[in-house]
């Protein structure tokens, strides 16, 4: 079962992202944090001191836990909308 609720909305065109070199299917305009969440990519980085895994937490650009690289630039996944061929790298952002 998909985490995307099907009956409430008609989504935009399907797009493919590259996440750490792997293809991930998403929909244009979707939040990158949501797209990663739906794809089961829950751990996005490690905390610098204890090295524990972190992922989407606040969804509003405050907690900074979903920091990834988008086309080489640091970005908060919850503040970015996905587009076709977006290149996302997790893990090594900080």
């Amino acid at each position: 079962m998909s985490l995307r609720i099907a009956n409430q909305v008609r989504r935009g065109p399907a797009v493919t992202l590259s996440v750490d070199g792997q293809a991930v299917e998403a929909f244009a305009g979707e939040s990158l944090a949501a797209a990663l969440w739906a794809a089961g990519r829950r751990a996005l980085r490690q905390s610098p001191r204890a090295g524990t895994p972190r992922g989407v937490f606040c969804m509003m650009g405050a907690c900074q836990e979903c920091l990834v690289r988008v086309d080489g630039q640091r970005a908060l996944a919850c503040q970015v909308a996905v587009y076709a061929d977006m290149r996302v790298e997790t893990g090594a952002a900080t």
Partner: protein
Amino acid sequence: MIRDPEILILGAGPAGVGAALALADHGVRALVVDSGFAAGGQVYRPMPDTFAPNGTPGLGPDQEEGARQRRLLADSGVATAFGRLVWSIGTDLRVDALGPDGPEFWRPKGLVVAAGATERVVPFPGWTLPGVMGLAAATILLKSQCMLPGRRVVVAGCGPLLFAVANAVVKGGGQVVALADLAGPGTWLRAMPALLGRPGDLLQGGAWMARLAAKGVPLMFRHTVREARALGAGLKVSLGAVDANGRPMRPARDRTLEADSLVVGHGLIPSTEALRLLGAEMYFDAEAGGWVPRLDDDQRASRAGLYAAGDGTGVRGAVGAFLAGRIAGLTAALDLGRIDAGQHARAAGPLRRRLAQARRFGRAMSRLMAPPSGLYDALDAHTVVCRCEDVTRAEVNQALESGAADVNQLKSWTRCGMGPCQGRMCGDTVAQIVALRTGSRAAAGAWTARVPLRPLNVEALAGDFDYDDIPLPTAAPL
């Protein structure tokens, strides 16, 4: 893009939109700046414009009100700057932002701060695990992305969002494994008189509870999350009983449940960095969610040209925020000489009466969202308090024993609050812990607000500017 707005509005949630509309009514050149991509704030956050909703969305009539406010804002002709991260505000009210086209700044005559709120999550062991997210985060996933926070979800914390989120999960086809509410049914009953002022919301809340009970969702009142552990790709969540003050009870009867995710939240905290940076006079009001600015009846803060409205001035909800925003806009128009005191009073009077009613309801909601103090006593030594820097309760205690007297001293001794979230996630918890020693939150203090207000890419800020672009004066002849 408007170069020099007379009034700059920080935040395009209901308070910011209210201010913009009032300013537009009186011909004031205003600009609304927001980090999001459309107006609405968190409460009315729209779906992406690539999405076409069909049928009733998961979380009630908020979507319609959001769409109405976006239409009003567009029709008002007020300039907007979305996707802008405001990182500095000078004492001359110069506002610096980083946007899609690089750095920008404006020099308005006045500033309306409508910064909204962030969510409070009181720490527990395992709260940093992927798969644990805030109630507000789940709301955003459900409302603006039409996405479940998990197939099998534990919903925990306090306040009305608990039931809103649990209901939306069930409606979206997910399963709520359990709902753990810190409050008891009595807490909800005591809130009834104030909630009766908004019968629509009361009915909706009642309908949510009834639907959850009918679906067989275990509603666990006076319960809290003891701990979350990773289990494969999911979580193992322990829930246990608490007394009326949030202190653990009957640990032998704790229950452990398996779930995909844990959605947890303990109310909202006003976002006051911008106001504190400008030196606005603040005071601590637990019922309003934390530190709030001292405002006069017309939404003026303690320095000329500075106004504030909405949840960022005390959590009172979206309806009150819109009304207070309109009053702030009217007052700015008055101070710019665009209307006279009589016009201001005639326009603000009816708004103020509706605001008083909205605040009564908002205060009841706020009380339901406030975490009981026992939750902080129960925070064990190994629990991470500051997520960014992995500072534990034990390290905080150690600093306090060594004599750290307020939150800023604690910050420099432990790095707690020094990470990229700039204390937004841990600040309230740390201050509560410090207050256990100092006796009050007022004495515990608040983080000093600093520039940059948000972390930003220095590359993006510098743009094409290079070392060679630094002008070097020609050396004087020897």
